């Protein structure tokens, strides 16, 4: 949830930077600052999409409390 939000915010910010840069109303100094920020945002967004820290978990509920446990895919395939 948090990752999704910050990703969307970053992407929006990046789109705005590109818009501002193409508007051509910035000084060189401002442009270079935006450029630097834009490249950083693009990198961090790309990193989020390339991240391979993928988790597969099973949501369980006990006495109204939720907890996550590792999901054993091999086991499920055997059952299937």
């Amino acid at each position, binding site marked *: 949830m948090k990752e999704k939000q910050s990703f969307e915010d970053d992407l929006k910010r990046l789109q705005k930077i590109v818009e501002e840069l193409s508007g051509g109303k910035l000084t060189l100094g401002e442009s270079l600052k935006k450029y630097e920020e834009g490249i950083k945002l693009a990198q961090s967004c790309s990193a989020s999409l390339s991240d391979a820290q993928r988790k597969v*978990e099973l949501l369980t509920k006990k006495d109204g409390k939720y907890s996550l446990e590792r999901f054993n895919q091999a086991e499920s395939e055997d059952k*299937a």
Partner: protein
Amino acid sequence: MPKPGPDLFNPAVSPKEQKHIYSVSEITHDIKVILENTFGEVWVEGEISNFRAATSGHFYFSLKDQSALLAAAMFARANRELKFKLEDGQKVICFGKVDVYGVRGQYQLIVDKVEPTGLGARQLAFEQLKNKLFKEGLFAPEHKRELPLMPFSVGIVTSAAGAAIRDILQILAKGSPCVSAVIRAVRVQGESAAKEIAAGIEDLNQFGKVDLIIVSRGGGSVEDLWSFNEEIVARAIYNSAIPVVSAVGHQINTTLSDLVADVFVETPSAAAKIIVDKRNALVAELDSLRQEIVFIITEMINSLKGGLVALRHMLKSPLDRLLEKQQLLDELRSGLNQGIRYYLNISRERMVSLIEKLGALSPLAVLSRGYSLSMLLPQGEIIKEAAKIKPGDKVKTILAKGAFIGLVQEIAADNFNSC
């Protein structure tokens, strides 16, 4: 209660004043209104008898059971949609409107849909529920939520042991390894399945840490998929604060959960593919945004560089200007020389011509014809009148060749003509 018959002998009170007397058409009309308003659209179960297909394409038959008979008509427009043949003796459920056919004084069912009993009963329940949920707005497009730009965490409500979860996880692992999955394992067929699926959706909403919920199961028979047609599942999907993708069965099994979901796809794999496609589209977009930024900055720097070159050029130019001036000077100088030469030539020519003219006017030319010219000395004044000289004056006379000086002896009295 038996009414007294009309008193033929005492018509003082007109029956018309006592009660309203209908015409046949009037009462038929009222019956029609009452019947149609009371029943509207209904489902009627019965057995087909007296089936007749008219040449017009309309079907006429009766529906009957042990103790009653209902006339029915199914017009061509409606019966074209039938997926099976109607036959006498067939047990069916008909959906239609009660109608009064005044011409024959008959009431009848105008049939819109017919289904064989058996499958029909369940289908009927389904249609009724679908209709109810539709009217409540559960399928309304304006209620559909947009899927998140990129769901990094996906909740999956399905069987932990099914093909669906395996397909989804496989495709995500391959195409979108940045996405985590939170599985809420439920039964997807059987008695308690619908309740578990609905609870699973609610659990994921309460748990909250997912961006998207996939409700799924693999293909199966209509009965296998039936849990996804239950009202409780439809309502859980409708009430989910998190967008829901329904991926139930294979191809054309459209369930209520499909209709309520924000997006529905035909297979579990297709649900996972939505996420993979989203990721790929974003990767491409980020790439193009980055390229655009680099392009804009490069352009900007290039254009500034261009300006710098122009400035540098301007700095160099005093020397250039000096050279230019020198060149101009050289050109002028050579032009000047040419001009002078030209002027001199012109002048020379004019002089020659003047000299020639002068030659023609020269008195010396006259002298050559025998005339002479005398001047009074010492002034050298040309003598044009004898009166200007006197004896004793010294006179120089110029001839065509040579000259002599003489003394005036006497002034002749008359002009030379008289000599």
